[in-house]
């Protein structure tokens, strides 16, 4: 069957067109429930909902907001037992990558899960989205910005999104495509996997023809973002040293929120929340005597470096840690360079290949020989 089809957009209502498509999936029983973002009653922000009643569906698939890690939500739903009924999950590309990592780490089960990936235009922080300064609402703003090919929305994007060079979903079953499309008229619906093909096969839709245009658009976009990413890393790590690193976390209040919102940090009890580092009064005094003084609560740099060591190879650079930080520490300034360098070292791309194991559980006998020799 034809894998790439188009949804015809009526009255330039992109969101409505996708919602009709999703409603159809629910009504036809091809999926029993759908995890998708929908406006909360105050309409201030959108949040993921698990929806089974098609009449109540009012999804905001293109809302430029990632309030919480949706991959972690899929993990929460499926980790004890896979779903018996087909469950659709609409995810940002970074969250699909994170979900694949969680599957590798035995924290999620993709049986009966239909991943619907959406071309990502980038997301705003929760606060920017809730108190959006422009006259239009954020969804119309970013879609209009995309239609007119301008970059006015970049000033509102989270820093992780500005330098994201993976805005096209990989490992999805179905892709809802915007890039290279004239979205006043049509949106791409692409079946990627077998289960995606099964769902789309009897939908009467036109075949997508302008494949070249989309491919060219994506190539240019990724090329452009890759350059931005390289410049970002150069800028942030060019002058980094012990002085700047230790003062980087000065505002940290040890709330561990970056860990709680991270899609990759899945440990039910984190080492840093445990009593491993608790000690008797005498030991605190002794530590104070060795340096003369020390800041409390202590071990904040140890927490960040330790957490980084544990999760960085699976880091999908979604930037939720930065969005979750109550003190607005620009965590991506260190996590993006660290992730890029470490993943390059192990030639590992998180979320890319479902069958590839995470680097820390495998080894080759003939690798890194020099490390233990001299």
């Amino acid at each position, binding site marked *: 069957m034809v894998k790439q089809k188009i949804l015809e957009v009526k009255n330039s209502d992109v969101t409505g067109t996708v919602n009709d498509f999703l409603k159809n999936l629910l009504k036809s029983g091809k999926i029993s429930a759908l995890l998708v973002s929908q406006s909360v009653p105050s309409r201030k922000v959108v949040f993921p909902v698990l929806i089974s009643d098609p009449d109540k569906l009012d999804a905001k698939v293109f809302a430029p907001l990632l309030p919480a890690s949706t991959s972690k939500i899929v993990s929460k739903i499926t980790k004890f037992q896979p779903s018996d009924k087909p469950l659709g999950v609409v995810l940002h590309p970074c969250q699909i990558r994170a979900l694949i990592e969680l599957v590798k780490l035995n924290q999620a089960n993709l049986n009966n899960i239909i991943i619907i990936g959406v071309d990502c235009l980038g997301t705003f922080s929760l606060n920017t989205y809730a108190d959006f300064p422009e006259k239009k609402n954020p969804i119309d703003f970013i879609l209009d910005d995309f239609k007119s090919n301008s970059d006015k929305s970049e000033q509102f994007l989270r820093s992780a999104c500005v330098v994201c060079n993976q805005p096209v979903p990989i490992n999805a079953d179905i892709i809802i495509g915007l890039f290279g499309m004239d979205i006043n008229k049509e949106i791409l619906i692409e079946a990627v996997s077998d289960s995606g093909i099964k769902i789309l096969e009897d939908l009467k839709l036109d075949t997508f023809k302008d494949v070249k245009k989309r491919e060219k658009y994506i190539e240019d976009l990724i090329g452009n973002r890759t350059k931005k990413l390289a410049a970002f890393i150069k800028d942030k790590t060019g002058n*980094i040293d012990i002085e700047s*690193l230790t003062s980087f976390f000065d505002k940290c209040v040890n709330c561990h929120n970056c860990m709680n919102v991270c899609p990759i940090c899945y440990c039910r009890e984190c080492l840093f929340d445990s009593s491993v580092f608790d000690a008797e009064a005498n030991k605190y005094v002794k530590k104070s005597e060795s340096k003369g003084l020390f*800041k409390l609560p202590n071990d904040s740099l140890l927490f960040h*470096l330790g957490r*980084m060591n544990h999760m960085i190879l699976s880091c999908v650079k979604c930037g939720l840690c930065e969005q979750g930080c109550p003190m607005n520490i620009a965590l991506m300034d260190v996590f993006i*360079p660290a992730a890029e*360098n470490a993943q390059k070292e192990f030639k590992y791309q998180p979320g890319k290949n479902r069958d590839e194991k995470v680097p820390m559980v495998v080894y080759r006998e003939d690798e*890194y020989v020099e490390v*233990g020799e001299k």
Partner: protein
Amino acid sequence: MNDEKKDIEKDFEPKIVGFLCNWCSYAGADLAGTSRIQYPPNIRIIRVMCSGSVDSMYILRALLEGADGVFVGGCHPGDCHYIDGNYKARRRMVLLQNILATLGLEKERVWIRWISASEGQKFADTMKEMTEAIKKLGPNPISKKWNI
């Protein structure tokens, strides 16, 4: 000031924390001792069951608490008592050193070496080598940071 600094560096005796695996490196250190081979007393040895059980956390904590160097000793590749612990330790060390380098910290302060139970002389030589190297690097600048 400069003279004072030089004096400090001349008298600088590095503190090295060593994680030695029970089956090879710890026995190697033991052999160095029973064979009365002299080596610098800068290392503080912690016996662990396997180099593969040394989480990067322990190494980082030692560095941040003020150790001037951290040494991890394991069995030679292929000789691990638990079959592949040292291969995993090696990967972890590569990751840790990569992160330290990205963040502008000195990865030269963290070493991993393979020393078998029969290599008392190699243990002593490695300790000499590492102590000299850390002396050249000077005191760990993090040890003076109280705001971390």
